[in-house]
């Protein structure tokens, strides 16, 4: 059975990789199997986890959580789109989800993406702490702190939409986008390396587990 599983996995792996050459029937088969199985898997998972595990278990226990009924009613309202004459009701739960989400995450995003970023930028450039001699920070720290402060400031300038990027403001915005692009470059290289490890993992499977060429 294990050998059969290895052969199936190898067949599917090579089928997906064959897409690098061109679209072909082998890829189409693998794609359909992947999509079909995953969609079915998610249906079963969501049904047992959410509808049975969360909702049904929640309202049938000794101390029922009636708040779950709100979610159930919203879910039923969503399904009403299947009835064309009252399909407009399905817009209400959508509005609820979108509005509640925007409101709920507003504070979280503001504190983590704005306040934390700003407070982390307030760095002394020349001395690390009170009472310590001038220029006692290492060159590494001085340059690093200047890059963090100037990069964040000019990055904000780039994302300022109320003023045309011209003159000194335009120059600052240009420094900002360069800072962002250099960051992207570093991130690109880092992520590519991690993807290479995924490829190596697949190759190890094919040449090791399947073909037995790697011991």
């Amino acid at each position, binding site marked *: 059975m294990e050998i059969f599983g290895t052969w199936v996995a190898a067949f599917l792996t090579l089928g997906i990789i064959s*897409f690098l050459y*061109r*679209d072909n029937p082998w*890829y189409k088969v*693998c*794609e359909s199997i*992947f*999509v079909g*199985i*995953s*969609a079915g*898997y*998610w249906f079963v998972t969501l049904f047992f986890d959410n509808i049975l595990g969360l909702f049904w278990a929640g309202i049938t226990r000794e101390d029922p959580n009636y708040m779950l009924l709100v979610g159930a009613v919203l879910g039923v309202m*969503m399904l009403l*789109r299947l009835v064309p004459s009252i399909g407009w009701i*399905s*817009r209400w739960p*959508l509005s609820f*989800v*979108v509005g509640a*989400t925007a409101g709920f*995450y507003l504070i979280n995003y*503001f504190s983590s993406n*704005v*306040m934390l*970023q*700003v*407070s982390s*930028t*307030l*760095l*002394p*450039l*020349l*001395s*690390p*702490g*009170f*009472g*310590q001699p*001038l220029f006692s920070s290492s060159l590494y720290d001085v340059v690093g702190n200047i890059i963090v*402060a100037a990069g*964040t*400031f000019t990055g*904000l*300038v780039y*994302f*300022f*939409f*109320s*003023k045309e*990027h011209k003159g000194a403001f335009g120059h600052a915005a240009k420094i900002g986008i360069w800072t*962002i*692009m250099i*960051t*992207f*470059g570093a*991130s*690109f290289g880092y992520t590519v390396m991690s*993807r290479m490890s995924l490829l190596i993992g697949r190759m190890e499977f094919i040449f090791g587990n399947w073909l037995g060429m790697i011991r």
Partner: protein
Amino acid sequence: MTVTRKSKPFLTPIILVLVFLVFLSASLFAQETASGISVAPPANVVASDFNYDRGEQAEVRWKLSSDDNGSAGVIGYEIFRAGVGSEDFVSVGLALPGESYFLDKDVQKGVGYVYKVAALYSGGQSFSDVSNAVIPELEMINWNLLNLFIIGLLIAASVIYFISHAKKGRKLFIRKIAGLEAIDEAIGRATEMGRPILFIPGINDMDDVQTIAGITILGRVARMVADYDIKINMPVSRSIVMTTARETIKEAYAGAGRPDAYNDDMVRYVTDEQFGYVAAVDGIMVREKPATCFYLGAFFAESLILAETGNSIGAIQIAGTAQPAQLPFFVAACDYTLIGEELFAASAYLSNEPKQLGSLKGQDIGKSLAMIIIIIGVISATISRAWGGSFFIWLSEFVNKISTIQN
């Protein structure tokens, strides 16, 4: 002559007793070595309600054991809790040597508790006295977030001001955003080539603001699609996104005066599975060869796979996301990329509606505030550390305080 040996009747018992004592002391010594020397208990155990929560947490502080000095004596602390008036203490957590604080996250609002702390050593525990009683309470207002509230209020006020400003018909300037300017060009290209448009709203659900931003731009794109009578294809990985996208496109078609041309099949659910979805979208791309691909929303590892496939079929590609790790891939493989904030600004920019323009202007006020805080904060921190000066020290601490979130 007879020599008689003098008898010593007490010597043997004394020797036996001595031998017994030697063995006994050796045995006791061995036992003490195995079990370790007892350590002094922690002192001054103080329990208090955790500030600004829903009454579900209590704090415990103590003075370290005098034997907690980095040697092997104290190996940690164990915290015990009991209800007021009860002697039934149960263990609620552990702390490392040198730690004198524990946050109990498993208490009930309005119930009284007492604590005691044990210093742990290799052979046992050394218990402190019982702490004072604490009753966790609900605090309706978290004053630690006052700075966040004031800054939020300032931004909200500026949003309201700019909205009313725009409603009076006064023009609000928004600079050009290249990626958004290209949307018209991209849709025009699809019209000329007679090929469909592919719109991917990311792989997250509607509880992600990036998906919401993507769907908002979809409204504008769908309106143009309806006007030019071209085909739009939108495979999605979330059921609620599918429903929302269908509503958005339907409304766009109705707005264009062509409700009959709308078809539910324009938006198709594929699967929730990330790479299953990607496999399907890649297949759609190479088979239908869309002229234009939009990737606007939250993307993860699939970003480069999608963008490279789109590139290989020669589609013009416009991407936008706020995922920092995925932006490099879009920048490398797409024609235009909306970077983070630009994605959120897109809906205001495209719609030109007073409400959205006002909110964008309000956000710019927030950015101005952040820039001012950074300039003042960095200068005051540098001067106060380098040269001192009470004013700069105060200014540095003040700026730090207003920009730091305390939970």
